[in-house]
């Protein structure tokens, strides 16, 4: 895949490394009779781009959902930096710096682009319902501060200013995905989980998205954990790859190492480079 602006690098010294590491250890997950994840362990290093790949049904989304907190693993732990977050409720993970996008777009249809993105900053707002009802000075200041931050850091960055007041359901698919990324960025994430960020996109949209992801990682020092089927993109932007199959980790390493790993080739049965 050509056209990417820069090769992936570990967060350089000029960007503040705000990213945390994400460690999954010995995670085991069962649903009734289905053994979704078996002893899954890997680490996404702080400030780097790590990709999780595998055939359909390998358990990639289950891993994400476990990290998000929707599934409690039957065994194993999830660590964000040094903190064990395995038992932390879902909504409390946002303020610890965990952000995520979804495979199927999960934007709020009743809200505009700007309002959707502002919701990313929800966990930073603490004012109370009375302040909200009377729109007190302090509420006003907080809302304006949020607006400023969202506009300068995210909307400008992802080039969404021309559609900020549009309702999200009239946007084309590619823009919706970008808005979802914007919303995740508004969370001030330290670990950003992207579930198939370029699914269904054409070449141009994929390149744009890849550029944005790399920019995020470089400028903000965020740790990026990526699930993706587009092998070209994965190989180009990630520094570390984890391969899942049937709920188990079958290989980890750099893209080059993983690409030539015999078990990985077998798992994909000849479909190594999708593009």
């Amino acid at each position, binding site marked *: 895949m050509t056209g990417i602006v820069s090769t992936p690098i570990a967060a350089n010294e000029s960007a503040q490394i705000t990213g945390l590491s994400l460690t999954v250890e010995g995670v085991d997950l069962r649903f009734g009779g289905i053994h979704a994840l078996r002893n899954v362990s890997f680490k996404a290093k702080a400030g780097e781009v790590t990709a999780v790949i595998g055939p359909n049904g390998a358990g990639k989304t289950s891993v994400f959902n476990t990290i998000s907190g*929707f599934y409690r693993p039957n065994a194993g732990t999830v660590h964000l930096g040094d903190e064990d977050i395995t038992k932390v409720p879902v909504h409390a993970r946002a303020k610890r710096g965990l952000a995520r996008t979804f495979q199927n777009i999960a934007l709020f249809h009743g809200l505009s682009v700007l309002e959707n993105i502002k919701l990313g900053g929800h966990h930073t707002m603490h004012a109370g319902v009375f302040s909200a009802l009377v729109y007190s000075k302090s509420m006003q200041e907080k809302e304006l501060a949020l607006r400023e931050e969202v506009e300068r850091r995210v909307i400008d960055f992802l080039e969404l200013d021309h559609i900020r007041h549009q309702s999200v359901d009239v946007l084309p698919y590619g823009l919706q995905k970008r808005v979802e990324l914007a919303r995740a960025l508004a969370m001030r994430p330290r670990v950003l989980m992207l579930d198939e960020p370029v699914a269904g996109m054409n070449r141009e949209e994929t390149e744009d998205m890849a550029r944005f992801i790399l920019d995020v990682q470089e400028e903000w020092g965020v740790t990026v954990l990526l699930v993706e089927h587009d092998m070209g993109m994965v190989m180009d932007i990630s520094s570390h790859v984890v391969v899942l199959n049937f709920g188990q980790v079958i290989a980890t390493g750099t893209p080059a190492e993983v690409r030539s790993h015999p078990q990985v080739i077998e798992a994909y049965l000849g479909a190594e480079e999708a593009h």
Partner: protein
Amino acid sequence: MIEFAEYSLLGLLSGGVMALIALSFVLIYKGTGVVNFAVGEVMMLGAYLYYAAAVTFELPPVVAFLISIGVISILAMIVERTVLRPLSGQPAVAVMMATIGMSSIMHGTIETIWGGDTYQPPGLLPRTPVFLGEVLIPGAVLGNFAIAAILIGGFLAFFRYSKTGIALRATASDPVTAATLGININFATRLTWMLAGSVGTVAGVLIASSAGLAPSLSGAALGVFAAIILGGMDSVLGAIVASLILGWVESISAGYLGGKSRDVIPYVVVLLILVVRPYGIFGTRTIERL
């Protein structure tokens, strides 16, 4: 002790008829995923139509019965076509509100046409009381239960063993796949509504024959919501078992705590269940796909 046995038995028997109403609800929910708030009003409308046919037009009771079932079936079809089909893309909340609207329309129409007085439709069954040991059971109650039991047994068998029954279950569980297998899903949906309407009518006629026909009849169905929640909204067996249990609870509380408690006990039960075990005894816990 005799009192307890009498209350218990009465409760179970009336619970059996309630089970028919619950069945009407579950049929629609299982068959089409629609939450039918108007289940009480459908039942009531069926009963009123029976009354109209039997008394106003002086037809023999059995004929009147069949006519009322027929009319309700047609109405069910019309509703499915005009209200539910256009709303099929919308969130479940919208459809639920539509059935709330429907219940209001039906209730109002019934009161407009027939007024608020109580009528006595002719019974289909003998009214002689029956003695079970030392316990006195009004004949109508026993008869109602018997009919309800037969119908419910019939439905359980229908869904289990008959080709149409299985087709209905398939449509409910996955309409697209069912369609590709050659099942006419529109017909299946319509049939589900017709069956549900018919069952409700039977329940309405049975209850009205013994308790009298008045607009407050739909209130009886509200207790059914408690049964549905207790049993699990998508379980036929659950609806039946829960109705029996609730019928028993209502009867016991009416007997020992006074008749007024009947108004409030089902709802207290509902709230308790929702907090403790929301999916009911037999309901399937839905797992949302993330």
